[in-house]
Structure formats: structure tokens, C-alpha cells
């Protein structure tokens, strides 16, 4: 992927424009650095008193008729949502962008249960049509050109070819409008959960989340327990900081706070609102005092945008839901350190991520800590066997010489099956090159030279 120059050009152009806009917005703050410190301290307060705030949040939001559900695992969260869908005998679901839903693979579960699920954020809609994971946590389709999107719409929606981003957006708008008006259930994520008033806050640009929370009769919001902010007024700081760090805007187009389903005397909105609070290893991160600040993350994507590794390898190469520096730090916690420790090395330790983070997460040090923690643990069985075999091989000159000869002779055969499951080096060659073994060893060459 790093060798794909066309891909790198697309990413560089997109992120170059982002940097210009973001720097302009940062400069408009009287002190961006002090704002970061205040944001970090506010999140610190929220997380170090999380039990108190979670209790306050649920009491307040339940008092206004919202049903709160608690899920320790991804499987529980999926089951809670499926149960609501079954109870409502729903057929169609519209969903506004939510990384937490990607984390628990909600769409697969819903589709498996026979539901029609449509993503309504434009970028998410595009990657859903391509059966792809989002490329970036804020810009899901930033790796695609308008030509590719036009071809996709022609194939999937039967639209006429166009190279105009505005026309392409309108094709999606028309297609999705119908879904909005007929969907039984709307699913959203949340950017913040306000303990003081029992509200969630959703940040967006398109208006898709607003429609998701206005039209269907049942609304479900899925959020991690770390989304808590103590006070409603904290948003006066967090909303502009999220927009600045995320997209370089002073404020995104819609920042909306929801405090309940449709209340008596109100004319629209869902009759029922379910809020699902997800743990899924977050309490384990909370227990890690050294890395607790990782839960400060507001998913702005700023660390991805400045990361030299992300800029070269792109979002899909990580093979994770959360990519970039924040993804490399949290994925080992969510999915196992030994299986995902290689991500800690996808870093130049330049510290650009730490500097970009609006809530001051010490990202590059956490990558180092993950390396350290991985090294003191027992590695996976595969790795143990691999290294033990290598030691045997390297300690026996005859065996070593045989291995080299064997490799030279069998490599042409490997080329025939490269990239297929028959390839013994499949896991390596799937994503990497395997260089040719030299036709002559150094030893042979040395001997000849004499």
C-alpha cells in the first residue's frame, strides 16, 4: 500500500487541505494550548469519577422516559439492539455514522437477522455500497475519487454518470430521503453524554443524524461509557474543539443535544428511545492508570491526519476498526495485546499524534508502553514455535545450509501459488513482498573468490 503512489497522492491532497483549515481555526482561539489543558482536565474529572457521572446520567435521562441498557460485551450490545428490533417487528433500519457500531459489527448482525440496514452519512453510505470498512474515523470515503464513486452509484443505484461532486451528493440525497421517510428504526451514536442534564450530544455536518432522530418511531443510540462529560456547559469548549481538530471548522453544521424521546406536548420525534451503554473492555482500560487517559478520546481523527505512517499506508492497512495512532493504542486493549502488538511498531515515535490531540492523550508514549507490555508477556504459540525453530536452524550450520538451498529451489514453486491459500507464506505475502533468495550465498561466493 505504501508503494501505491496514486493512493498516497489522494490522501496527501485531502490531508493537506485539512491541515490548512485546522491551523487557521486553531489560530483563532485565544489560546489553543490552554483550551487543550482545560479539555483534558474536564475529561480527567469525568473519567476519574465515572461511576458517579454514569449514575447521574442514567437517572436524569431515564426520568424523561428513555430506556437505558447496559452491555458488558459487544455480543450483549448486539443482542439488546436485535431484541428491540424484534419487539418492534421492524423491517428497515437507518443508521447515522457511529464508530461504536462498527466496533461491535452491528450491521452484520442486523443484516443477518434479515433487516435492511442503510447507512445515511454520505461517506458511510459509499463504503457500505462497496462492502468496505470506513477508511478513516471521520472521513470514511476519503480514499475514493469522484470517478470511482460515480461508477459505484451507476452500478448500485442505476444513476447516470457524472463527475460533479454536487450531482453525486444529490443522487445519494434522493436515494436516502426515501429511506428516511419509511424506516422503522433509527440508530445513532453519540459524541458526548452529559451527566448534569441527562442528554447525549451528536456532532455532524449533513443533517442525517438530525433526521435519524426525528423521523423513525423508535430511536436507538449506542455509546461507550467513556463518552461522559460532567456538565452541559462543557460543550461550549468541546464542540468547537472537536470541529477544529476533526475537520478544521469553527463548529460543525449541526450540534444537537437529545434529552429524551418525544415529550408530552411535542409534535414529533421518536415515541421510544433506547440508549445502550457499552463497556467492551473500556473498564479494563480504565483500570490501567498509566493509559487511562486513552479514554479521553473524542474520536476527532486529528492523530490520524498528522501521522506519517497513516499518510503512507492508509486506513485499511491496519485491519482494525479504529486506525491511526489512537487505533494502534486501543486495539491491543480491545482485541488482545499479543495478536495486535505489531501496531505499536507502526509508529515513528515522532509525537505528532500527541501534539495534535485536543484532549492531550499521551499517544506516542502509550505505543511505547504497549511495546514494553508485549515484551514482558508470553508471546503467542505461533511466535514461540517460530523463534524456537529459527534458533535450531541458526545453530546448526548444516541445517542452515540445507535450508538456504531448499529455499532457493522451492521459491519458483511458491511463486505459482503466491497470494492463494496454498501458499505456505500466505499470511506474510498477503500484505507484503517476499524478496527472492539470492542465487548464490555469500559463503559460496567467498569460496569461489579464493
Amino acid at each position, binding site marked *: 500500500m505504501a508503494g501505491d503512489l496514486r493512493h498516497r497522492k*489522494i490522501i496527501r491532497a*485531502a490531508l493537506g487541505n485539512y491541515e490548512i483549515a485546522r491551523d487557521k481555526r486553531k489560530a483563532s*482561539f*485565544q*489560546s489553543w494550548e*490552554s*483550551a487543550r489543558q*482545560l479539555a483534558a*482536565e*474536564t475529561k*480527567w474529572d469525568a*473519567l*476519574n*469519577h465515572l*461511576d458517579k457521572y*454514569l449514575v447521574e446520567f442514567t437517572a436524569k435521562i431515564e426520568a424523561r422516559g428513555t430506556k437505558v441498557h*447496559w*452491555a*458488558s460485551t459487544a455480543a*450483549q450490545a448486539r443482542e439488546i439492539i436485535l431484541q428491540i428490533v424484534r419487539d418492534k417487528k421492524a423491517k428497515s433500519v437507518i443508521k447515522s455514522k457511529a464508530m461504536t457500531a462498527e466496533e461491535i459489527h452491528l450491521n452484520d448482525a442486523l443484516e443477518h437477522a434479515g433487516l435492511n440496514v442503510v447507512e445515511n*452519512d454520505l461517506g458511510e453510505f459509499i463504503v457500505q455500497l462497496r462492502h468496505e470498512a470506513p477508511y478513516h474515523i471521520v472521513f470514511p*470515503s*476519503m480514499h475514493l475519487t469522484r470517478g470511482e464513486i460515480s461508477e459505484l452509484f451507476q452500478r448500485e443505484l442505476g444513476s447516470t454518470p457524472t463527475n460533479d*461532486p454536487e450531482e*453525486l*451528493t444529490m443522487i445519494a*440525497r434522493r436515494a436516502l430521503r426515501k429511506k428516511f*421517510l419509511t424506516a422503522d428504526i433509527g440508530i445513532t451514536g453519540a459524541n458526548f453524554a452529559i451527566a448534569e442534564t441527562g442528554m447525549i450530544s451528536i456532532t455532524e*455536518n*449533513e*443533517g442525517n443524524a*438530525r*433526521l435519524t*432522530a*426525528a423521523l423513525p418511531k423508535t430511536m436507538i443510540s449506542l455509546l461507550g461509557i467513556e463518552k461522559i462529560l460532567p*456538565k*452541559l*456547559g462543557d460543550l*461550549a469548549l468541546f464542540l*468547537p474543539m472537536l470541529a477544529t481538530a476533526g475537520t478544521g471548522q*469553527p*463548529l*460543525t*453544521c*449541526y450540534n*444537537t*443535544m*437529545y*434529552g429524551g*424521546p418525544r*415529550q408530552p406536548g*411535542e*409534535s*414529533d*420525534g421518536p415515541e421510544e428511545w433506547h440508549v445502550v451503554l457499552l*463497556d467492551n473492555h473500556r*473498564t*479494563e482500560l*480504565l483500570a490501567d*492508570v498509566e493509559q487511562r487517559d486513552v479514554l479521553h478520546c473524542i474520536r476527532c481523527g486529528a492523530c490520524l491526519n498528522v501521522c506519517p505512517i497513516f499518510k503512507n499506508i492508509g486506513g485499511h492497512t491496519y485491519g482494525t476498526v479504529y486506525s491511526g495512532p489512537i487505533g494502534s493504542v486501543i486495539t491491543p486493549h480491545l482485541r488482545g495485546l499479543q495478536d495486535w502488538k505489531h501496531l505499536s511498531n507502526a509508529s515513528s515515535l515522532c509525537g505528532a499524534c500527541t501534539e495534535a490531540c485536543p484532549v492531550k492523550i499521551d499517544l506516542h508514549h502509550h505505543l511505547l508502553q504497549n511495546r514494553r507490555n508485549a515484551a514482558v508477556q508470553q508471546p503467542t504459540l505461533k511466535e514461540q514455535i517460530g523463534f524456537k525453530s529459527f534458533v535450531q536452524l541458526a545453530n546448526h550450520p548444516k541445517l542452515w545450509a540445507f535450508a538456504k538451498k531448499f529455499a532457493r529451489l522451492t521459491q519458483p514453486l511458491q511463486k505459482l501459488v503466491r497470494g492463494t491459500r496454498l501458499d505456505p507464506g500466505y499470511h506474510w505475502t498477503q500484505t507484503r513482498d517476499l524478496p527472492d533468495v539470492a542465487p548464490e550465498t555469500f559463503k559460496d561466493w567467498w569460496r569461489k573468490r579464493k
Partner: protein
Amino acid sequence: MTEREKILARVREALKVTAPLPGSHGETHLPASAKNISTARQWLPKVGESFAEQLALFQKNAAELKADFQLLASRDELENALAKISTAENWKRIASHHGELTDFVSGSLDLPICFTDKNYDVHELETCDAGISECDALVAQTGSVLVANRSAGGRALSVLPPHHVVLARREQLVADLPAAFELLQQKYAANYPSMISFITGPSRTSDIERILVLGAHGPKKLTILCF
């Protein structure tokens, strides 16, 4: 034990040790309890103190956001301004809600009106050319319009029709975001509306090659008529 109890027990177990304060190198920090809404004000983008400065800032922000901000001399000009837009865009049907300002002007257009403050048909709202609403405040710092479902005709009126027209008074202009949240607290703290939204320009997306397109799912146009 319910999942709620299990999760809270794990949280309490984890929090037996407090994490060090962020960026702490021995300096003193303001305790969290001493902070209030206006603590952030000193770090956020600067807003002038006089009304004229704030108005100019709102105008500048609205222009950057591609919203149409029209400053009118008096309430009587609302009717005229609205009629001009209606003629230019050839409106056939509008949506609105009952309120002092909306009642004052919406009848003058002589068009069928879909009222959204009582039960209404969403398919009918979808066919309207414009949604006309009041608001809670205008925010100079960001060029935002603050609406709540209680003050602006529900959740869908300001986002479903292709053109959102906001009617506002000059005195509704507040300086910055902290002031907007203070206003919300004063106005609603006893019983908050179930939806409160900061609308900052017409709906937009940059999901295709990071090129700005207006009118992704919400209104393509946002007009603010202020007297």
C-alpha cells in the same frame, strides 16, 4: 447482579487508584468544581464586547458559512423580505409553527402552510419548499442559530425542507458559546426540551474528494432574517 451493577462495580474497582492529572508537573490546577461555563470563554476565539462588533462578527461568520443573513430595519420588513424570497424561488407550499414572529408573517404569503407544532404528516412536510421557524439565539462567535424543538416547531421543521428561514430579533444575538449555554440554562433548566440544536450554516458534506457541497441531507439554503 445486573449488567449495570457489574459495569459499575468494575468502574469502581478501576477507580480505586486515581490517575495523575493531565500534563501535571507539580503546577496547581483549578479544581474541577471551581469551573463553570464561562471558564472556557478566555481561551475560545475572541468576540468583541459591543453589540456592533458582535453583529459584524455574526455577519462575517454567516457569509463564510454560505448562509444568507439579512439585517432588517424593523419587524414590518420581515413580510417584504420573505415575499421576495418566495417569489424568487417560486414557493408553492411552506411549513411553519405558531409563534409571535411566524404568525406575524407566514399568513402574508398566501400559500398553504403545514404546521408542525401539532401532529402533522411528515410526507406533507417533505413536499414543502421552505420551513420557517423562530429560534432561541444567534451566536456571534460561530455564526450559529440555536433552536430547540419547543421554540422552533419540532425536530424536523428546521432540517427536512430544502430551505430553512429563521426569524430573529437583534436582542437574540449572544456573544459566544458559553453565553448560549448560560441562556439555555436560564431558559430551560427546570425542564429541557428533548432536542436542542446549534445550526451552523446550511447542511454540508465534503465526503467526496473533500470538496464542499451544500445540502447533503438537510437544507441547501439557510436564511436568517433579523430585525
